[in-house]
């Protein structure tokens, strides 16, 4: 009898703990949207998922298309390009919700979707030659030698410069500069307690990816190359900038305050900002970001001493895939071709220039600059967007490697561990990752 009681008590305990755990759970999400019933042979409706806010270009693009193509109507669905947003997109695709086209913003995300078979193979479609249209940089977006999407935009990363501040300091707009030269600029341009250089967190780690994209993330023997001397150089020099020189924001402070770096640059507070083309979305917005200085543009400075040894992030972006399970793949393809060949021009207002050689570049530029052309140094803008011939790479680093790296360098920049420990830990954790994921 006593034994029986003990067993019943234990089972009750398990059930109680289970129920309490269950009851403590979070709230549920909203209902999935029901798809509209389609009348036979009538209007085809497509859904395009993208990460750009509709008012920053996509809605205008789709309005243009919908006006001229009453038989194929495209609706835009916004997802935020972060973990939750991409999960939302992936879940929508996997559960068979209406996703006809979707934009991939990194090659690693695209690869993941290709691996799971949800992106249609476009290599079999011969009426649009992606290589020919988009140029040699499209090669970076091939996965296993095939296109599972169309890279539609020129993807520009640059350092934005306050040209008035540069002129006042008698500094030329750089076209090719080293990391050391950037550090010198930051010192000369620093004013009082302010910073001379600031970075958006998205391209923060690009300088070392520029090195490793060229040299390889793994050595010949297959082990991690994260202990490359230029990685150390990046860590040490940035630490000097954050601490001794005070020419850039300490990383801990930047992360915890979610530092509004675009605003700090556009208010004239900081003269140099490492960022990408999406800056133009804000810099063209004089209502929220009034400014009285001209913006010039420079390539991202290189860690490598030798320019011939340098790659930079850029090339093409906004890789648009067609859902392999879509019921309207042909119509989606028609739309995608139109979009890529110039239909996307209104996206330029947010800094996204069409990559296709058949797109009207003049119209796109007009859309990008609007009536604000005079507030930019257009020579350097053209250089970083069109004329810079530095070889480019696309970010292919898996999220796990991005994270293990950032966790270790955050500890370093916060003085939680020294440089040697940081390098050793990055290598160790990367090797552990490589052990279970041999392809990278």
């Amino acid at each position, binding site marked *: 009898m006593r034994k029986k009681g003990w067993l019943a008590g234990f089972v009750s*305990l398990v059930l109680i703990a289970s129920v309490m*755990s269950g009851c403590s759970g979070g709230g549920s999400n909203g209902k999935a949207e029901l798809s509209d019933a389609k009348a036979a042979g009538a209007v085809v409706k497509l859904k395009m998922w993208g990460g750009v806010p509709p008012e920053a270009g996509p809605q205008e693009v789709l309005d243009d298309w919908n006006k001229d193509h009453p038989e194929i109507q495209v609706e835009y669905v916004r997802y935020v390009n972060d973990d939750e947003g991409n*999960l939302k997109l*992936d879940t929508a695709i996997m559960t068979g919700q209406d996703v006809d086209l979707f934009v991939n913003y990194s090659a690693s995300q695209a690869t993941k979707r290709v691996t799971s078979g949800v992106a249609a193979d476009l290599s079999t479609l011969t009426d649009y030659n992606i290589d020919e249209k988009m140029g040699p940089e499209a090669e970076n977006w091939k996965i296993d030698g095939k296109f599972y999407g169309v890279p539609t935009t020129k993807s520009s990363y640059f350092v934005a410069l306050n040209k008035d501040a540069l002129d006042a300091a008698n500094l030329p707009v750089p076209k090719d500069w080293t990391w050391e030269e950037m550090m010198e600029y930051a010192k000369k341009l620093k004013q009082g307690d302010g910073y001379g250089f600031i970075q958006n967190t998205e391209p923060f780690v690009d300088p070392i990816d520029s090195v490793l994209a060229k040299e390889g993330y793994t050595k010949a023997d297959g082990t991690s190359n994260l202990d490359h001397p230029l990685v150390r150089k990046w860590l040490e020099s940035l630490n000097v900038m954050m601490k001794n020189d005070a020419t850039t924001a300490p990383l801990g402070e930047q*992360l*915890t305050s979610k530092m509004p770096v675009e605003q700090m640059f556009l208010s004239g507070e900081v003269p140099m900002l490492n960022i990408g083309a999406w800056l133009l979305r804000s810099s063209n917005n004089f209502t929220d970001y009034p400014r009285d200085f001209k913006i010039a543009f420079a390539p991202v400075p290189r860690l490598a001493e030798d320019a011939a040894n340098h790659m930079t992030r850029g090339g093409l972006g906004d890789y648009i895939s067609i859902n392999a399970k879509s019921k309207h793949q042909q119509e989606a393809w028609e739309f995608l071709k139109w979009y890529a060949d110039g239909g996307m021009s209104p996206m330029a207002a947010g800094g996204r220039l069409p990559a296709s050689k058949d797109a009207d570049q003049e119209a796109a530029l007009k859309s990008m600059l609007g009536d604000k052309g005079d507030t930019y140094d257009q020579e350097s803008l053209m250089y970083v967007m069109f004329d810079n011939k530095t070889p480019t790479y696309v970010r292919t680093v898996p999220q796990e490697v991005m994270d293990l790296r950032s966790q270790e360098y*955050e*500890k370093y920049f916060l003085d*939680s561990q020294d440089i040697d420990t940081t390098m050793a830990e990055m290598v160790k954790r990367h090797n552990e990752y490589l052990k279970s994921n041999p392809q990278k």
Partner: protein
Amino acid sequence: MTNNWMRRQQRLGYIFIGPSMIGVLLFFLIPAAYSLGLVFTDYKFMNPNVGFVGFDNINRMLHDKLFYLSLKNTVIFLLAVPVSLALGFVVAVILNQRIYLKKVLRALYFMPYITSGVAVSFVWMLLFQPKQGPINGFLRAIGIDHPPGWLSTTTSSMFAIDIIWIWFLMGYNMIIYLAALQEVSPELLEAAKIDGARPGQMLRKIIWPLVSPTSFLLLVTGMIMTIKTFGIIQATTQGGPGNSTTILSLYVYQNAFRYYEMGYASTISWALFIIILIITAIQWIGQKRWVHY
């Protein structure tokens, strides 16, 4: 006749709890069993190839430095529960007396609990700003030259999270304690006073023991809720700087929905369940020594 009647009553009872049990079965037990199955696979969300890997996930977890770091952070996070209990009790006792603005203060203390976690996180991020934040401004003003970095350094970030969580939980604890204090008989207090007991003695010997069932309830539910919660951490630090605020539940989330490693995430979540079970069992057994009914 009696047996028939009892049996009919039992059947009726089962009918009444049926819908709830079906809900628990469908939405909790079946998914839990499914996730237990995932523990032995290398299932990745969106990857159609699923392989059986036996105890690989368990071995990986037992050798995973981040797992132990997350466990340590979870323990630090759990320290907030008894502290918020104590503070909630103190505030409840104070607000249970006749004081000015009692109703207003009760509402103010409860406000954090019903505020959106993201809003709470945002406000505290501003408060904890190392350079411009009011907290460090105040500390500098009273002569502390190097106040803590709070969320922006690895050594202080987990304790900053604890402070936010204590503040968040305190109001709820206060409300429950206020309800419990209504059950303390004034006659007992009067009798004690007549016998010469001081207020501190009355608190320690009469009030605290009489609300011990409530303390137990708040402790158990607080522990369970805290182990599973990561929204505030996700909104403030995303587990950083470094890994310094990654707790186990956030680590599960990251593996499941950032890396899409469902098999490994299930393994860690089952470890989390076992940990919750052990902690709850310890509390349940321990209550015999301090909870009075």
